[in-house]
Every structure is written in C-alpha cells, then in structure tokens.
C-alpha cells in the first residue's frame, strides 16, 4: 500500500470525475485512509470469493433430472476450523491496527492551538482565544495542530469534518475535545452529524485552512473585540468573583493564580487536575468539590452565564498562569 497505489486510485477517480474519495487534508487522514482501503480490500475479496463460488456451484451442480439424489458429504472439522480461524485472525489484525490508530489520534499534541466551539440548535459558535468569534466558519492555519474544546447549549450535536476524518459528539453540560492538524490549504465542509432537530441539515459550515501569514492577516485584520481572556476578566469583576478570589490568597476563597493544570486536593482526599472540566464544574457546581480549608459558600452560577461566557471566564483563569504568580499578580 505505497503512495504509488494511492496516486493510481485518485487518478482513476479523477478520470471518472465521480467523487468517490473525499479530500485528505489532515495528518491522521492518511492513516485512516490506508485502514479504509485495507477493509475495502477484505470486503471485495470475500464478496467476490463467495459470489464466484456460488455461481460456479450453481452452474456445475444444477439439477439435471428430477430424481437426482446427491450423496452424503460428511463435515470435515478441519475445514470448519480453517474458516473460523482465518476470519478470527483477520479480525484480530484489523482490531489491533484500528485501535492503535484510534489511540494515537485521540491525543492532541502538546503545543496545539486551542479554539472553542459551542453548538446551539442549528448553528455553531466558534471562538478564537485571540478574540475573533465566528458563526459556522472556522479559520485555521495550515500545519499547526488545533485542539477544539466543544460543548452544546441544548441537545446533543456532533462536530464532524470529513476532510480531516474527525468527528465527536458535542454533549450539553460537558466538554468534549478533538484535534486536527491541517496539511493542505483549502476550504472544507464541516457538518452536524448527530440528529438535533428541525434544521439539523442546515448546521453546516466551512473550515478555511490558510497559510500562516494569511491566517495572521485574517487574525489581525477585520473587526475583532477583546480577546477571550479580556472578556473573561471583565466578567470576573462584573460577577463579583474578584471580591473573594483575591490574587494574594488572603480572601475567603482560594486564589486562582497559577491554578490551571495543577493538582487540587479535595476535602475527601481525591486529587483532581484543574483542567477545563474542573474549572467549569467549579463555576457551575462548586459545592460538589469541597476544598479542605474553605467553607462551601460559593454560589452556583448555573443558568446565569451561557457557555460562551463560561469559556471566556476559563480563558481568563488560564491566563493567570504561573508567571503572573511570581510577579505577585495584578
């Protein structure tokens, strides 16, 4: 299965000008395609095998006369064993190949850009940390791994980009994340792939994969408000979080400086890492994770702020990284 064969099929396809092969525009696309071709090969092989054997037997052993009675054919356990073990072996090979590929694809590389997707009934809100917010459009630089942190405001949606061979359900009340690294510039569809109501079919959008400088130009040009972190800071003061979460840790609540991605020890002894899900849970449902030496006085903000504002608050908390901590915070 070398690239030559791969080129051969795409030329063949181009000749027929019938799109039977989706564009492959992400790093993992190649691996998934190879597995797909292997499985297609297996399917065609066995289907043709069974069809040809049947046709051959149909012609050779057609009934010549009414009173023809075929003799007894004993069952050879050897034959039964072969057509049990061979499919089993093939299944094991496919399973190992597919699962290792899946495990590799499910972990975003460490230095990936992060973008936030909020699915709402029948549109996608996309926010870039630097500030731009788009509806049903996603601008990404080519060659840079991008991690999408997604949630839904109502029902289950599913963010699916066929050209990148990725798809993940977007559940309300939880963050789910996928990542991709675009390899070819261009414009590709993304869809909602989990039925979500009347206009499920209209939740379609475009991914614009741009070269690095085009992306930088797009990012700086055009009207864009404050970055997510700045929006988050404004909300942080507006909602009164600043009164408790004072930077130098003598308020009634723990400081949030340098909290992101660091282990937090709870009263019942569990240690959790303060990732996106932890921060979201802390804002929406804090009392369910009591801290050892703080009273559970934090009110729940469930319903007061929507998912986008939640993401902005979390972006702000993340911006209070360890380096600010050393400079004794704002």
């Amino acid at each position, binding site marked *: 299965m070398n690239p030559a064969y791969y080129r051969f099929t795409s030329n063949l396809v181009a000749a027929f000008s019938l799109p039977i092969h989706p564009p492959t525009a992400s790093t993992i696309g190649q691996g998934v395609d190879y597995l797909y071709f292997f499985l297609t090969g297996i399917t065609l092989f066995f289907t043709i095998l069974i069809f040809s054997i049947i046709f051959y037997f149909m012609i050779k052993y057609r009934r010549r006369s009414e009173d023809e009675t075929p003799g007894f054919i004993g069952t050879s356990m050897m034959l039964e064993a072969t057509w049990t073990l061979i499919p089993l072996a093939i299944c094991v090979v496919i399973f190992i190949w597919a699962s290792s590929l899946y495990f590799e694809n499910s972990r975003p590389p460490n230095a990936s850009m992060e973008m936030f997707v909020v699915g709402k009934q029948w549109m996608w809100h996309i926010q870039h940390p630097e500030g731009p917010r788009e509806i049903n459009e996603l601008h990404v630089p080519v060659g840079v791994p991008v991690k999408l942190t997604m949630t839904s405001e109502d029902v289950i949606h599913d963010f699916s980009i066929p050209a990148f061979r990725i798809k993940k359900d977007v559940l309300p009340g939880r963050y789910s994340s996928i990542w991709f690294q675009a390899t070819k510039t261009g414009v590709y569809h993304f869809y909602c792939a989990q*039925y979500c109501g009347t206009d499920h079919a209209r939740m379609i959008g475009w991914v614009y994969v741009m070269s690095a400088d085009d992306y930088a130009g797009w990012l700086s040009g055009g009207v864009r408000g404050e970055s997510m972190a700045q929006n988050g800071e404004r909300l942080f003061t507006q909602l009164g979080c600043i009164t408790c979460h004072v930077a130098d840790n003598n308020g009634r609540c723990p400081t949030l400086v340098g909290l992101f991605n660091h282990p937090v020890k709870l009263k019942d002894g569990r240690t959790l890492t303060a990732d996106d899900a932890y921060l979201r849970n802390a804002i929406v449902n804090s009392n369910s994770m009591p801290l050892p030496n703080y009273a559970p006085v934090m009110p729940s903000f469930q319903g007061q702020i929507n998912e986008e504002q939640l993401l902005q608050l979390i972006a702000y908390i993340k911006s209070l990284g360890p380096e600010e901590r050393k400079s004794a915070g704002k």
Partner: protein
Amino acid sequence: MSTAVTEIPQDSRVHYLNVSYGVKSWLLTVDHKRIALLYLASITFMFLVGGVAAVLMRIHLIEPAGALVQPETYNKLFSAHGIIMVFFFLVPSIPATLGNFLVPLMIGAKDLAFPKLNLLSWYIYVVGALFTLYAVISGGVDTGWTFYTPYSSTYSHSAVIPVAIGVFITGFSSILTGLNFIVTIHKMRAPGLTWFRLPLFIWTMYATSVIFILGTPVLAITIFLLGVERLFHVGIFDPALGGDPLLFQHLFWFYSHPAVYIMILPGMGVVSELIAAFSRKRIYGYSMVAYSSFAIAIISFLVWGHHMFVTGQSIYAGLIFSVLSFLVAIPSAIKVFNWTATLYKGSISYEAPMLYALGFIGLFTMGGLTGLFLASLATDVHLSGTYFIVAHFHYIMVGGAVMAYMGGLHYWWPKITGRMYPDMWARVAAVIIFVGFNLTFFPQFMLGYLGMPRRYAVYPPEFQVFNVMSSAGASILGIGYLIPLVYFIWSMRYGPLAPANPWGAKGLEWTVPSPPPTENFEETPIVTEEAYDYAPIPEGQHG
C-alpha cells in the same frame, strides 16, 4: 397468470382455513396457523406504510435543496420509516408469521404451548400499531427511531408520548411470542426429535426468542423512563437537571443491537431451510451452524457500545466493545461458509425461494463485512453518523432479513394457503428486487465515505449524483415489492392446488397435507431420522 382461468380450483378437504368462516372465527382463533395469517396481514400493512415513507424520502432527496417537503416533515418521514420498519415489520416479521405457523408443525406438536397468549400477543401488536399510526397521522414524531435524549425528552415538540406508548406496548407482543416459542421447543417436541435433529429454522427461532426474552424488557423500561422524564420534566437523562444522556443510549442500545440480530437470525434460519431443500442436501456442518445461531444470540448482548464510539463514551469501554464486535462477526462468517459449502455436489434447482436465498448470502456477506468498518475504532470515527451506516444496516436488513422473509414466504406459501403461485413471475420479482436493492444502497456506501451525514433533509450539491442513483434504485425496489403482493393475492383464489410436498423437501411440515388440518398431525409422529435426511448417513459419520 398465463394459463386461461376456466374454472377456479376448489379444495374439498377440511383444513384449518375452511373449518370455519366469519370474522369471529378469525378474531377469536387460538390456532397458531390462523394467528400467523393475522400477523401476516398486519405486518404487510405496516410494511407498506413504512415503504411509502421510504419512497417519499427518496423522492425528496433527488435535489440537494429537497424536492418534496419541508425539513420538519422530512424528519417526521424518516422517524416514521425507522420506527414502523424496525418495531412493526422487521422485529416481528419472520418469527410472528412463519415462526408462528411452522414451529408446531416442524416439531410435531398440535399447537404452541400457550395458544391464548399467542392471540393476546397479536392483539397487543395491533394496539401498539394503532398508537404509533395515530402518532404518525396526528402530526408525526421527529426524534428518529433512536429517541436520543435530551432532544426527545425536552426539545422535541412532536407526538413522542403516543409513539413511546405504542413501542412500549408492542414490546410485550414480542416477549409473549418469544416465551411461547421457548416453552414449545423445550417441552412439546415429538418423541425422537432430539435437539440435533431439529431443523435449523427451529434453532434460529429459539435463539431469537432468547433475545426477545432478555432484551425487550430493557427497551420497555427505557421507553417508560423517557416517558416519565418527558411528562414530569424530571432529569433522568437530561443533563441540565443532572441526568446523563449517555445512560439512555446504553439502555436503548442494550436492546436495540440484539434487536438487529432478532431481525437477521430468523432470516438465517429460513435460508438454511431453503439451501438444504433446493440443493437436496443436508446443511454442511449442521452442528456448527446450530451452535453459531446460539452464539450470535449470546454475544449480541455484549457489543452495543459500538453505536457510541463517538458519543463521548470512555475510550476504554470503546476498546472492549470493539473487540467483542469483531467476535460477533465470526459466527456469521461460519454460517456463510457453511451455506456455500452445502451447494457443493448438490442438485440445485432455481425456483424463486432459492433465488432469494442465494441473493441473501451475497448481500448478507457484503452487509456483514461493511460492519467491520464500523467495529474498528479508527474508521468508525469517520463513518459514524454518515450514509455508510445507513447502507450497512440496509444491506443486512433489506438485503438480508427482507430477502429471506420473501424467500420463506414463497417456500411455505403452498403449505400456508394450499395454492401454488406463478413461479415465473416470482423469479422476475426476485431479480428486480435484487437489482433495485443494489442500485439503491450501494451508492450510499460512497456517500458515507464522502462524509454525507445521515438524516439530512438538504445536502451539499456534490452528493447529488449518488442520491439520484439511490432514488432511482428505490423506485425499482418499490415495484419489485409490489409484484409479489399481486400474484400472492391472485394465487389465493386462482392458484393451482398445492400438493403436500411441492418441493420434495424433508421436514415434518411437509408430511402433512397443504393446508394442514387444524390439529396438524392425526397422531404425533415418531422421528427416527436426522434433519434434512436426503441421503442416509453412513455409520460412524456424524451429521
């Protein structure tokens, strides 16, 4: 049809059909054969309703922007098509019609163990069907046949409750059928009829009944909880109120995946009978095929997680379900190889039932192998939620279960009605169905790989070519299904009288006249030879 119909052939003998007439004799019958015909009528009606929904969908999908209806109506069409076809046609089709008719006949019993429960199961089916048809007519339901929450419990404003009641009630109809079969096959076999002398159709009826018994109740409780959540606005599965939507999917698929084996296992049983009868040979590896039917019934309960690979299910659970999903494919592979091996050195004749059986083997092989794409984690991410899945399960259900149902109907039609059907027309219809089917669903594999999501009322223009091909195929398939309807009805009145054993097949049901008397056997037969005893088994060889 070609022979000039001068006189209508009359049957002088008394049998289960002419023993009594009138509506009461049908609506209050406890004879398993008459109940099978009641089921046949109601199932055919539901198949037509579901089929009309399918044709409307295919017409709508000819144009990217939708040629017929608003998206709202399209959602109701595919939901109605899904619900009616799954719960009201595919699940009960072979067990309730052919199964009800043949189980007592094949094992030498006078009737099923609980005749009154058998009639009750038909009435429950009818009540469930009425609820669902009321829902479809009174505005329709737009949640799809999977009823995923929180859409179905909080956000959908369509007739979810009536459909939920309809599906809840119909579940008990299949529970009663399953219960009847298990007790009958265990307790009422003719003397000498050991388990390994049973026809393979009985093995698949037994395996299907095990799934009926152990799967359907979980669907009933899941639909009940959905109804409670929707009526009382409590958050069992609604994340906003603390519930977990994935729990609904777990409970739903715990039944719904074994349900797809409920649909295909009886089809496998029918095909085993057809292949043996029309090649005049014992099924190759009889015990292996019998064991694999039972193995499918058991392992089918361990694999439901492959429906949830991309829905946020834990990766480790996905790993377990993926391995088990590969395991469940092995017994099906064994069966296909054994059917093909049965043809070796047989004396094969090509009446209509055999065409359906051979078509089944080919299409079921393709359907099963495309399942491997969805069991392997990496490709399922790309293919989940697309038309590849629609094509996969239609290859198994329409290419498999419906083909086998048609084959079985043709094969046992002379026994059920005592009349032969025009075989030439039947062969033509079989070929039309085979061609129409492939033209409808093979392009959908391409659409799936290209990434077109399923349940889309409108789609981007680059997918139009395949959708038009699929719609063309659907019209051919639709015609293919209407032809048998015509000549079956014709044959009921004008068809030539059928002998007791028109195909020269082995099996207890062929030892009684067609149509059989009400009490099936004058005296209970004593069984001495093996199943499919076309050629005597030399000493020292096992079957």
